[in-house]
């Protein structure tokens, strides 16, 4: 494989290797917290931070960590960043922290992060790992923002809490969209749309 430029390294996560829509990683948070657009954005920001930082640190430590204890070591690094996000968010963004709930600690096991640590950061330079982290994080954020937007719009008639579809719609909104089944259905349809575009 030829060397990718910095821009390509950054861009691959957004579309061609989009972690959620193409590689199907990190499903749990993306389905669970995307009941609103704001949640999607908040979760995305948290993931970008954790993914970038852990990619950088793991890339720096990649020559030090023996491969037998690799997984525990990686996961500890990831968990520390997640806990930091958790604490900082609870202190300064309490409302968001409340609605993201138990899924902040669960970023630890978001497969995207460990997968990138394992597949990319443990083999590449610090600079490239940082770019990879940002790109993947942005791709993930875009995907869950769209997901959250659709679900909030159809399930509640609002976007970012502001009524968009009018009172009449809000009274009879498709509640199922913000219930668990709506998450599966929306993501399924979104992926189908993506496949249809690619197939052409």
């Amino acid at each position, binding site marked *: 494989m030829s060397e990718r430029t910095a821009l390509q390294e950054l861009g691959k996560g957004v579309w061609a290797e989009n972690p959620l829509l193409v590689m199907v990683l990190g499903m749990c948070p993306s389905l669970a917290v995307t009941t609103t657009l704001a949640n999607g954005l908040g979760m995305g920001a948290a993931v970008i931070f954790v993914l970038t930082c852990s990619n950088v640190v793991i890339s720096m430590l990649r020559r030090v960590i023996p491969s*037998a*204890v690799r997984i*525990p070591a990686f996961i*500890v690094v990831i968990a520390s960043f997640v806990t930091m996000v958790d604490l900082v968010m609870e202190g300064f963004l309490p409302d968001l922290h409340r609605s993201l709930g138990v899924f902040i600690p669960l970023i630890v096991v978001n497969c995207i992060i460990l997968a990138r640590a394992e597949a990319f950061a443990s083999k590449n330079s610090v600079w490239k790992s940082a770019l990879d982290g940002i790109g993947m994080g942005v791709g993930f954020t875009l995907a869950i923002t769209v997901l959250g937007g659709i679900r909030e719009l159809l399930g509640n008639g609002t976007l970012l809490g502001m009524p968009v579809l009018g009172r009449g719609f809000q009274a009879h909104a498709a509640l199922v969209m913000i219930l668990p089944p709506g998450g599966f259905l929306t993501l399924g349809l979104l992926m189908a749309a993506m496949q249809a575009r690619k197939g052409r």
Partner: protein
Amino acid sequence: MDVQGILVAGGTLGAVGAVAASVLAAASRAFRVDEDPRIGQVTEALPGANCGGCGYPGCSGYAAAVVAGKAAPDLCAPGGAGAVRRIGAILGIAIEEKVRMVAVVRCGGGHQACPTRFHYAGVRNCKAVTLLTEGGSKGCPDACEGLGDCVEACLFDAIHMGPDGLPIVDRERCTACGQCVKACPKGVMVLEPCTARVTVACHTRLAAREVRKVCSAGCISCRQCVKVCPYEALAMKGNLPVFDHSRCVSCGLCIDACKPGTMAARVTPDPAVREQALARQAERKAEEAARKAAASPAPAGDAS
């Protein structure tokens, strides 16, 4: 800054980490399974398609079996001769190269030649139609259903549906993993040596009389192919001709002799081979004539 707090936190988690690592280190020692390092090497040498064609659960399973001496080193079809050579090098054994196999379609009954008995509107899948309708939708119970179970089963994108509803194998891509053979409910797909360029594209169990009713491309047991072959590579077995691949040179004479067109050329025969075969045929005829002439005083007329 609360230095003590930091020390307590660091100490606690450090201690847990130390315990965890010690336990793992001890375990890796105590529970060490003396795994042959060659298993890893063999796994590396395999293509990693995990197709299961060898009959073992995945490539690493096969590698373990090969190293343990429980499996032959040439079972990996996708890896081909290259993998066999690499495995041989790792295990330090000489392995004779095996002829590469390839999947072939043993049916010529497409939509035109072998029409369906009824319109099937169920699940679009050969297995389903065969199970549901007892023998499938085609006139011939052994005909290809053409719904593409083999296409789906192929891990290497080597099989595609042709225009007549018969699958076409890309011989370059085919690795003879055997997935299509397993997938086909009609037994249409078989593996043959890639040197065999001519195939009996029919495997019907029907007798000639019934074949004529349902399929225009099926074998009618006329024996013309057997008669015409100058190398005695064909013999009738039941109602179908069978190749002896060690004798066949793929001259293609049988293809010309076959009236329904059951004999199918998978690769166009080499003209030079064809010339040779024609010469051989003429030679044989002459011999035959000479023998007959010797046997009976009145020489019979030439068969041509």
